[in-house]
């Protein structure tokens, strides 16, 4: 196997692996920002820069193939400086007022009031405390004081029911584009790049709603507070959230979910990365359809119809009633007078049980599934 050196350590690699993959395999951390697992690396953010001996430029670890005999430094002063410059420019170009704590300059204050005056900016950023850009800024010692801000206007798209797209915090990493086009393959966010002279309006990842399914994958991958769930806005700070893992109740796929919970209430939902079967992906129902859980109209006990209305009953009473009625019908009309239909929200095992019950206990082959038609 070919070998190379990372931070003076000799490691071996397979041809075709990127520098990032080799580093990860060997437990060496290289910070990334735009890199999105499962999609082809684009090298856009220039945070995963590393120094390779013999090269007068810094190379992006995410998309540079590892080469025999390379001597790589992942954390040298040159590398750290370059990363820091990029982080600084990213922060200075948008409405990232989370570093307000260490502000003092007049410039920043002016900017701060400008930012606070915008819609969705009256409170702290929705991803405060859970933001990749903020993490990097802190790790690399970026100080608001040192920045010359050049934040101007940005588009805002808050007209759809679930998602707010506040491009004043967009850092142009393109992860949402990849999530939509390569991971979900909805292709609703066209790549916006091209010479600035033809893009006077900027390069924002604007959505083509003819294609958008409102699945919210873009929100999940956005590393900043540019894309966020409308319903969750202002409901909880990152440190108040408890994450609970569960299985989506909607369909038989069984996607793995994180419920972001505060005070026993779901604030928002995200997909569990690196887990079968969905690898972080979710559809619009799994991600946004959780309001019913806290709905006052939810049934909490069995109801039995009497005359024009319903009355509450115990499970025993309800089940006895159903079993007796089945028995009566079968006695009178034979087993083929009943049929079993299982629900698309039930898991395979439950559907199996249903057909077992109908075939071997009731004695009929009348079984079906609502998703079959």
């Amino acid at each position, binding site marked *: 196997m070919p070998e190379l050196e990372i931070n003076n350590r000799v490691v071996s690699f397979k*041809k*075709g692996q990127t520098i990032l993959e080799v580093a990860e395999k060997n437990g060496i951390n290289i910070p990334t920002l735009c890199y999105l697992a499962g999609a*082809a690396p*684009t*090298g*856009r*953010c*220039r*945070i995963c*820069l590393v120094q*390779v001996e*013999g*090269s*007068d*430029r*810094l*190379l*992006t670890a995410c998309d*540079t*193939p*590892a*080469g*025999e005999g*390379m001597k790589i430094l992942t954390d040298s002063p040159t590398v750290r400086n*370059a990363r820091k*410059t*990029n982080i600084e*420019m*990213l922060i*200075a*170009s948008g409405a990232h007022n989370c570093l307000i704590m260490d502000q003092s300059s007049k410039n920043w204050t002016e900017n701060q009031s400008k930012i606070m005056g915008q819609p969705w900016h009256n409170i702290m950023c929705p991803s405060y405390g859970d933001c990749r850009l903020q993490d990097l800024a802190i790790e690399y010692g970026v100080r608001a004081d040192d920045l*010359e801000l*050049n934040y101007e206007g940005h588009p805002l798209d808050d007209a759809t029911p679930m998602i707010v797209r506040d491009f004043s915090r967009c*850092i*142009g990493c*393109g992860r949402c584009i990849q999530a939509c086009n390569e991971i979900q393959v909805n*292709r609703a966010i*066209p*790549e*916006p*790049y*091209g*010479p*600035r*002279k033809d*893009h006077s309006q*900027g*390069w924002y990842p604007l959505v083509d709603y003819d294609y958008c399914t409102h699945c919210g994958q873009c929100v999940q991958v956005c590393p900043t507070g540019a894309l966020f769930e409308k319903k969750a806005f202002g409901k909880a700070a990152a440190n108040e959230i408890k994450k609970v893992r569960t299985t989506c109740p909607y369909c038989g796929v069984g996607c793995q979910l994180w419920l972001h919970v505060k005070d026993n209430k779901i604030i928002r939902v995200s997909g569990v990365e690196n887990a079968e079967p969905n690898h972080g992906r979710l559809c619009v129902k799994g991600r946004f359809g959780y309001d019913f859980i806290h709905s006052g109209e939810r049934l909490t006990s069995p109801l039995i119809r009497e005359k024009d209305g319903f009355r509450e009953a115990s499970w025993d009473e309800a089940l006895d009633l159903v079993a007796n009625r089945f028995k009566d019908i079968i006695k009178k009309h034979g087993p083929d007078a009943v049929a079993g239909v299982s629900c698309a929200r039930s898991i395979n095992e439950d559907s199996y049980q249903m057909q077992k019950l109908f075939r071997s206990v009731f004695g009929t082959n009348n079984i079906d599934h609502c998703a079959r038609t």
Partner: protein
Amino acid sequence: MELPFLNTWEKGDSIVNTANSVISGQLSKKSLKSLMGWGGVMIWDRNIDPVDMLYAYLMRVASESCGECTPCRLGTVRLCMVMERIVGGKGRKSDLKLIKNLVSHISATGKCDIGRTISKPVLDILDAYEETFIEVIEKKRQVKKGEYAHVITAPCINACPSHLDIPGYIENIRMGNWEKAMEIVRKDCPMPGTIGRVCVRPCESACRRGLLDEPISIRALKRFLADCEMNGVIKTESPPQGVQKQKVAVIGAGPAGISCAYYLARRGYPCTIFEAQEGPGGMAAYGIPSYRLPRNVIAHEVNVLEKLGVEIRYGVNVGKDITMEEIASRGYESVFVGVGAPDSSKMRCEGEDAGYRCFLTGVHFLSESARGRKPAEGKKLVVIGGGNVAMDCVRTARRLGFEDVNLLYRRTEAEMPADPQEIREAKEEGIKFHHLVAPVEILAENDTVAGIKCLRMELGEPDSSGRRRPVPVEGSEFVIECDVIIPAIGQVCVVDCVLPEEDVLTSWKTLIVDQTTFQSDRQQIFGGGDCVTGPQTLIGALAAGKNAARFISQYLQQGGCKPELSDLILSLASAEGVYDPGESFPYPGITEREEPSVLEPEIRVNGFDEVESCLTPSRARVESDRCLRCYRLLMSAI
């Protein structure tokens, strides 16, 4: 032209020489005052204010930044902000350092060559003029505003005679903007389906990706777009911009003529093409066989042309059926001559002028076959030549049913000018190659070809083209018996048929025109393509037609042709070259280029079905992702 007083360009001396020949050759009234680009800075004119020039340069870089990567997208705006305050008298002492740091940062960390190439010229100018910059910042000296022109190029763009924005359309394929990509192609190439199939692709030999692993399949990507257009997947009709009154006549519906008419029509001029033959396309239709270029492709391209309002009159031989004077008297205010190089070169071998049956030139053979006729009968056929026309002849002969097809060439395969892919495919089709053989006499019985007497050759000293000259081996004569002989060793021009005046022609019967404006000594007559250059390439002819259209328009609007500074910068870049074959990359290349699939030899020799197929959308996307986007900016003061 004198030497620049500041010259930091890596290959500065060579540029000065090139500039000298480019400028003295064609644009004597214009001169370069300065040059700023990836290699450094050159300044000839002491009146240029370096502060203003740097500002102008950085504004241009910023306007080319594509928005993909952080350092260039944000760094270039920042640089412009800093320059703006410097020239506005609000510069800070720390600004020079800031600029230096920023450009170094952008070049060290940028994703593509727009960002990567800015540090050298900027650092050079700051070094050379540090005091001037400090003066402007500290004393708030007023900056002298100048005017500048620039061009955007790349190794591939520069190698293409029509300077197609290759990274531009490739990038738009990658992003899925096929219509935008096609618009970019059509800006410089009105026959994208033709060029996407049979261009000699000089761009691919100059593709930087080739230094890393394999060049981009530039031609196949263009074909992908063209096929999308032809099949109606994308729509790219752009109506003419404006309406003009002056009528223009175009002679010849070959690529040069088609291109000139297309770009004139897009500018709104009414154009009429006079074409001697019964159909359009010139050598593309009557030379290039349909297994390489199906006829419906040209038909589609001409259809687009006619939709723009261009009228084509077929069967009109200018010089015979109508004279240039008559054309002028019918109200055509300008004429473009694009009559090609239709006659065949002589082999200088005995018997070739005797008029034997079954002895016919390559161009004649191919045009007959293109018209669906079999121009000669027999079993064994011999073609003489080593270029693409010879390849077309042997492969066509195979498809017409000749059982024993032979190619004679004076040198060895290494010296053959034909495309290696053509040679490979011809071999696969069972063509027999005879190298180091030259014909001396055509043998005939009853005035019909019976065989060819040949001499064996060996390679001697290199000639002016750098290829080793073949010299005959004494006493090596031998005879190849055969039924048909086809010389395909080149074509010559006969512009005198159209324009009998000798002063506008060379002794080779080519038309003399200005290299930049394509205007002849008769100011209303322009010309381009093979009839000016001798037999060349499709893309060369298209480029000539495109550029001539621009200058014809200028002539009709302003009464004269004046090239712009950007034309000069472009010719300078073309002459100097942008591709650096010595460049090495700090990482290994691991990708393979996507090649279109080809029909199996056993199947393809049975007819004229197209050999090469089109890339699928997903493979086109994968291929487009390999492009390194090697854009370069070159700016000069006016």
